[in-house]
């Protein structure tokens, strides 16, 4: 489907509605007819070096309707488009590392409630997931359904502390989102 192929010129400002219900505006960065991919940047004009824009790559098939809002210069500088591969690699690696770290915070196969409890606990205590148990300070274990009575292990001091924190966090969460669970 090539909807409006002729009108997708570089630099054109368009307002789009997609078949999925999205609506947005932006400037066309490029349009690749064979693949029907339209690249739109949010914001008008050429981005200076380092300036960041939100970019959308949209398959033109899914454009329900669009309208041309205006015209402007080519958002890409043909001469200045350099790809720094090493920087890209580095960025990707950094992002992956970060994501890995964050993913460890997420329990596999646990309910969102459990996850939110985990997140709340992790604000003040070192917590890890062990299957569906939350392990605090490597000693104290909190099992399903993560009530204060499910706290076990560790020294009595640690145990008490975890119980208190858990209790407090639960109350806090309940107050914030009543009835979610």
């Amino acid at each position: 489907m090539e909807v409006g192929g002729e009108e997708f010129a570089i630099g054109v400002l368009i307002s789009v509605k997609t078949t999925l219900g999205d609506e947005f505006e932006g400037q066309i960065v490029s349009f690749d007819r064979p693949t029907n991919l339209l690249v739109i940047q949010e914001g008008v004009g050429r981005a200076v070096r380092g300036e960041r824009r939100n970019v959308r790559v949209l398959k033109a098939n899914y454009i329900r309707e669009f309208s041309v809002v205006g015209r402007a210069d080519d958002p890409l500088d043909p001469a200045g488009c350099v790809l720094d591969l090493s920087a890209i690699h580095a960025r990707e690696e950094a992002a992956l590392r970060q994501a890995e770290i964050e993913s460890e915070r997420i329990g596999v196969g646990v309910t969102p409630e459990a996850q939110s409890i985990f997140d709340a606990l992790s604000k003040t205590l070192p917590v890890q997931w062990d299957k569906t148990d939350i392990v605090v300070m490597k000693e104290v274990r909190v099992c399903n359904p993560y009530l204060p009575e499910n706290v076990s292990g560790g020294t009595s001091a640690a145990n008490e502390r975890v119980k208190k924190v858990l209790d407090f966090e639960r109350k806090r969460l309940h107050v914030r989102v009543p009835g979610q669970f």
Partner: protein
Amino acid sequence: MAKHTVVAMKPKRLGAHQYDFKYEGPLRATPTYCNHGLSAAGTMNHQQQIVPPRASANGFPHRKLDREGSGRQDSKPQLLMSSSGGFSISEIGGKVGHGCPSRDRLIYVMTQLIGHHVDVHVKNGSIISGIFHATNSDKDFGIVMKMAQVIKDGSVRGHKNAVDVVRKPETMIIPARELVQILAKDVALGGDELPKGPSHDKRKDLMIDSAISRSHYPEERELERWAPDEGDSECIELEKFDRKGNRSWDQFETNAALFGVKSTFNEELYTTKLERGPHMRELEKHASRIAREIEGEDTKDIHLAEERGLYLDDDLDHDEEIKYSAVRRDTDNTKYKASTNVSSNTNPIDSLTRAGNTDPKSWLACPSTADEESSSHVFDTNSSTTFPINNVSQLASHSQPNKHLSIDESRLDDKLAKDSSGDRGTRNFQTENTISEGGRLSISEDLEGPSSSSHPYEPSSSGQGKKSSESLQSDATLTGKPLAEYVNSQRPGSSTSSTSELIAGAANSVACAPGLSPSSSMGSLSSEKSSLNPNAKEFKLNPNAKSFTPTSLRPPHPPASDGAYYYPNNMPTAPLGPAVPGMGFPPAYGGQPMVYNAQPGPSPQGYMHPAGPQYGQQMMIGQTRPVYYYAPDMQQYRGRNF
């Protein structure tokens, strides 16, 4: 080729990067997968890491998938082959056959997306969020995402905002067919800031230790030896050594030349003057022999042992802190313990003990005068030979605390004898009766190993028995060497005979002198700690106690004024009269504090409790017992106060 690219590409394997579909698992597109996709409600079957087509999406899912899968697999080698170093987008364009700049732009944008967090909308309404990894720019730009998760499940079954169960992120491939749109935030379309580009990312990703150790950070790198840059020859200056190992650079010379600073250092101000006379070589040889003997000794002290390369019982509990900490811990080792192998020491002690009396002066804690020291050089070295050895070994075997260099060997022996004869707990030997000199010397051994050496010298009031003695006595940390040195300094006037005896003795211990008759003073053994010797009699200073004259015992430690050994040396030759108890000396040098306490009476003085670690390394060998030393003349103290 219609138009050439305007996008400059680095001559790298962009293609490889771009085309590198790094799936985590094999790319399988089996019918079962599709069926599961159909039937498994809500569960995204990501085993093959392919977004399962929803039942509603495709009529023939499996077939399409097969094609897709195989197509992708085919495309992979294709893609890889197409990428080669030095290619440019124009090549891509040419190869693909489109050659349109729009394709180049698309590729540029897609490449810029790599590493960004993107949200991918797919046909069924699901939104998948992950890190953009690669795209199939050769064909239809399906994309590969790493650490991807389904944010919003648009499947028929679940129109929920949140997924039922949290799942672990994984690598996902989204076929172009499924792709609706890719949303990326904060993309630098104009290129990253040049110099700061990488660092900017680094700032975002603070590499904290826990992050590094947690993630699979690059494994250990091969370390390379540092080599200076070519033009940088100056930094090698500092390491120029000539054949002898001396640096060819004289700092004093340089300083004088550069700043006109003249050094006024006179070694003799700080140490005893070395008499370079005809006996020099002899003395040197002697000294080095002694040194070798000392250094080759067995020792129970862990620090000494380490220095000498011996291995004590390798206690795995001895971590660095225990081994090297300056903090005194009250472990059993440091408590006063009655040594059980006193008997073994007796004989050596005999040999050690001095037959004759030693001049009280010689017992001065410090080499009193230079001339004394010099004159007694030979003696000192000689006498010191065996004494330290004996002392050390005895100490070692007895686990005796380091002893103060007893001014009077006989006293020491006497004390040791008493030790052997009686309980060897913390005992304050009042060896006055055994002291040949007129003065009384109380030998206090500090049983606490580490503390002994560190005791600072404090003049103590004579009033309190133990206390005074405590303060008086700095715990003697006798290790072979220090003791020897101390002894050397102590005994400027010891007789040669004692030396020979000492040497001959080759005793294991100096401590025990069984031959000595326990004097009355020895009978009363008071211990500072009740745990040490509950039976010890309370020490009471008895100014009228008879002085002891050892008969056959040699002084355990000949006075030696070692050139290297520096000790506050105001111990004059004055005979020890009823000395003021509670006099002490500041430690001569780090680790060897010796406190002299004048104990007129034969009664053993209160055991001086080591005040605490003043110096890092306490050289306590075996059992340490309070040893009181007589400080006959405090006024003449000319040493340095540390």
